[in-house]
């Protein structure tokens, strides 16, 4: 536990007090920070986003003043190396007024409330907290006397900007809790103990007890981190799986030393590796307290499978490399393991299946039935449905969802599996197969939906509509103004439920431009940040196909241990695979690629 607490301190200390902020994540905040302070600033993007923040009504003073100074500087020839700005030239007087006002806002914004509370003078306070004296003087001069000279104001503006950078942007940067770091350290710590425990199984009871307690504490700590930032925590957990290892045994509840030597990914992580078995143990323990963590994991894994699949299909006509396919196999087996765990939790009563979550249901571990239907649907739509593990996982889901009509569905699924059994053929072939299979799948689903309908007239509306909702999103037929959202699962205000896993996701909020829409439907978001729900290719099959063009460009065999790349779990949006490495690309770059693609074609 000491280690865990140390980690907490290392992360800048975790405060539980929350404050309303206009940004939806620290990534968004960092995006604005970098658009202002990086060597290649993007003034337009920064100011636009700050305008959006302002409209939310809780813009912090330092952000407001930074934006003001930043914008004025853009108009000032002095800061443009003498180049006049494109739009109207500002007169010196106008610039002086703008600077003075920004500086008044800065000093007053920071000093007003300390001044009121303590009664100390503004200049006294400024000295204490290190606000440059020149700013205080300018505030006084321009409020009570005359507007200071532009020369002085230039100097002051530079000081003010630096002061803000140092005292707000940098200091806030270091105060942002680093969940990744904390969680990693806790996990390593726990893994250490798990290893120790394993080799010391024969040791005395008291020691064992102590390590038990230690693990419990660690799990509690992980749980707390998961509470604070569920999606981040999940992605870190997933990073610890060695997904590119040649083989993960499917029933590895005991950890295997064998997987240690498997890390040909040769990373800095070598000495830090936690075996998959250990990870599973940790997650199992965690999920007993927080069953929903499994759904979050499942969602991320499915996203990885989809992304992976895209890559493999882009790889050209030749069959995928063995490393890749083992990663895919590992992912698939992870899906099965997660579903198995969900089922176990269901059987042990940790997860309750309910028809519908009532608004007052305090049971956060209840999962509505329609979620299973959605998940199943997602599974069936996965291109790797032929994979034994996924089929098995789907079977498990069916087992959980309905009892009566299991047999019928079982038969259909075995049929599916059989059809997919020559999996070892080339990708091209499997592609065709998977295409041809879609009709079978949808038929299966429809049948299933009907069955459900017959069985429970009440509940079906939900299940069925949920199904339809995902199936038909690209069709405009059900748009008639306001209607109550179907198959809703509880999620915090500002987030939306994932379309299949019922976990809350932070939506991507960038406007999709009409012209760009076609090309960018999948990777169209140029914002290089944010937890992002990877595009649901099932909901928009045609856009999915269109979107392929973008990833097709860099045709390098992606064998660089994709699973180690954080991008995969935090979303591929705004990135492009160039030379085997994910790189952030701007809208302009993409557009130019797009135009050159046209020429190629």
């Amino acid at each position: 536990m000491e280690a865990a607490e140390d980690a907490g301190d290392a992360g800048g200390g975790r405060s539980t007090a929350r404050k309303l902020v206009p940004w939806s994540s620290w990534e968004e905040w960092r995006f604005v920070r970098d658009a202002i302070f990086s060597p290649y600033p993007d003034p337009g993007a920064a100011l636009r986003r700050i305008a959006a923040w302002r409209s939310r009504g809780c813009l912090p003073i330092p952000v407001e003043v930074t934006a003001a100074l930043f914008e004025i500087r853009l108009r000032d020839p002095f800061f443009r190396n003498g180049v006049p700005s494109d739009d109207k030239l500002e007169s010196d007087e106008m610039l002086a007024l703008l600077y003075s006002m920004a500086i008044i806002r800065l000093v007053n914004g920071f000093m007003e409330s300390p001044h009121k509370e303590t009664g100390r003078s503004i200049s006294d306070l400024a000295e204490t907290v290190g606000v440059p004296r020149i700013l205080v003087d300018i505030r006084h001069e321009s409020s009570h006397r005359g507007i200071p000279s532009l020369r002085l104001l230039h100097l002051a503006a530079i000081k003010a900007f630096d002061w803000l950078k140092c005292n707000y942007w940098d200091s806030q940067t270091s105060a942002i809790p680093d969940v990744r770091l904390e969680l990693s350290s806790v996990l390593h710590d726990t893994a250490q103990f798990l290893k120790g425990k394993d080799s010391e199984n024969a040791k005395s009871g008291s020691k064992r007890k102590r390590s038990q307690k230690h693990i419990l504490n660690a799990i509690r700590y992980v749980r707390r981190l998961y509470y604070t930032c569920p999606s981040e925590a999940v992605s870190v957990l997933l990073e610890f799986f060695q997904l590119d290892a040649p083989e993960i045994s499917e029933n590895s509840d005991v950890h295997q030393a064998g997987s240690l030597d498997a890390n040909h990914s040769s990373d800095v992580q070598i000495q830090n590796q936690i075996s998959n078995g250990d990870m599973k143990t940790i997650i199992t323990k965690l999920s007993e307290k927080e069953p929903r963590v499994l759904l979050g994991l499942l969602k991320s894994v499915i996203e990885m499978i989809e992304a992976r699949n895209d890559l493999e299909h882009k790889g050209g006509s030749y069959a995928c490399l063995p490393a890749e396919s083992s990663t895919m196999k590992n992912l698939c087996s992870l899906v099965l393991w997660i579903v198995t765990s969900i089922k176990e939790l269901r059987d042990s009563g940790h997860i309750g299946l309910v028809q519908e979550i009532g608004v007052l249901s305090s049971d956060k571990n209840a999962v509505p039935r329609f979620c299973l239907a959605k998940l199943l649907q997602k599974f069936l739509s996965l291109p790797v449905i032929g994979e034994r593990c996924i089929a098995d996982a789907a079977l498990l889901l069916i087992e959980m969802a309905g009892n009566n009509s299991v047999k019928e569905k079982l038969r259909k699924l075995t049929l599916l599996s059989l059809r997919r059994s020559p999996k070892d053929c080339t990708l091209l072939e499997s592609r065709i197969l998977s295409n041809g299979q879609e009709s079978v799948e949808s038929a299966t689903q429809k049948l299933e939906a009907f069955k459900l309908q017959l069985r429970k007239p009440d509940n079906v509306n939900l299940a069925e509509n949920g199904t339809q909702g995902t199936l038909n999103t690209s069709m405009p037929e059900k748009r008639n103004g306001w209607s109550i959202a179907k198959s809703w699962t509880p999620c915090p205000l500002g987030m939306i439920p994932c379309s299949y896993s019922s976990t809350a996701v932070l939506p991507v909020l960038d406007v999709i431009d009409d012209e760009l829409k076609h090309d960018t439907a999948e990777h169209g978001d140029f914002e290089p940040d944010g937890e992002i729900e990877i595009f649901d290719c099932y909901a928009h099959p045609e856009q999915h196909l269109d979107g392929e063009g973008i990833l097709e460009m860099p045709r390098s065999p992606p064998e660089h241990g994709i699973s180690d790349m954080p991008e995969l779990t935090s979303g591929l949006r705004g990135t492009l695979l160039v030379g085997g490495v994910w790189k952030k690309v701007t809208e302009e770059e993409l557009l130019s690629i797009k135009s050159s693609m046209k020429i190629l074609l």
Partner: protein
Amino acid sequence: MKHRRRSKQQKLDSLPPPASPAIRAACPIPSPSASPKSPAPATPPPEQAPEVVVPDDWALATEVIASDLSSPVVLVCGPSNSGKSTFTRLLLNKLLPSYGRIGYLDTDVGQPEFSPPGCLSLHIADEAIADMWNPVLREAERCCFYGDISSKGDPESYLNSLFLLYNYFVEKYRCPGSEVLPLIVNTPGWVKGTGFDMLVEMLRYICPTIVVPIRTRMQRKNLPDGMFWLTGGETEPKVITIDAASRDSLSKSSLKRKDGGGMRERRLVEYFKQCFSSDISLATNKELAYALASLPPYEVSFSDVTVMHLHCEVPRTEIWHSLNATIVGLASSCDTPATAHAIPWCVGLGIVRGIDVQRGLLYVITPVAVEHLQSVDLLLQGLIEIPRSVLQVKGCESPYMSTNVRDKITGKDLYASNLNSPLSRQDDGDSDSDADTM
């Protein structure tokens, strides 16, 4: 205890009355506790519903107004926390038996009587007010969403909305020949500077038949004596000056300043509680927050609504960043009155609880009935802050509630850890505190 302190104009010129003990005792404060520390009417003690003691001059004023049988238009004005709302409640109850229905024009966007904050509204009341202490939500006859808690941001839109509502009332309820209803106008407590100018404009436009200025003992906070809004030549209304119910205005006002934000938050919470059927008990904010997170929201396609930002310019590319998890006014562009300065009627408020850009869907929580929603095609975004209490419940915290925010000078910065200054507090409820006092 009967005192004829003030009536009509003859008392107009007198200064605030001497602090007579009789007046003190007669203040509408909870009768058991007549101590100077007793809370203002706006913030009653939460536990027991205190008995209302009506000061004599208030009772007299309502008598006089009730005796005017020609359906008066009564405008109540005065500094903040002087008891305007309470007086209008009394008056409404007094007039109701004789008229059956009474118009109530609520112009205090910071603390509306029957509406959630940010709204100007016209109500036709046909039911007496039971709770003298707290404002109660009632459905408005017509409502305009102004979108801020003070009129200072956009006086023009504010006045236009107000005039629009007044015209609507006059056209519908004061036509000669049909039933003529009396009207009570409650005004904001901002009576200095621009607030005063706006009050004057309001008075000139509405031309009330009776004006009730409420005076506090802080002379410099009061409105000028006399008919300050008249330029001469107009028919003079009846003016009935009364005294503020609370004596200790200094401490009261500071008490209220702190609480303004809290009151608004409670009102919004109360408003959104209406999303749930009354048999669901939502005693705590935590329960409500979780219920709101669980409630299946309405979904509406981007193509079916237009987003309007009332007080800010927002770049087109940023609208969803701006809108997510904020409060909006739900309005309809088609039934916008032709005479208006393009101010649409508002049917209620909603929380944009999530946005799915890829599917082009907005998810909105609102207590407005679905049949009324069908005509809603405008989302008006103002600066009404979403109550923090509905954003955080353990395990379901909104991403907009962040930890580790460092954007203030803290006590630590000032004293290098020698004392725990209140400056380091994490929440700041002072963003709107000067709404009434500016």
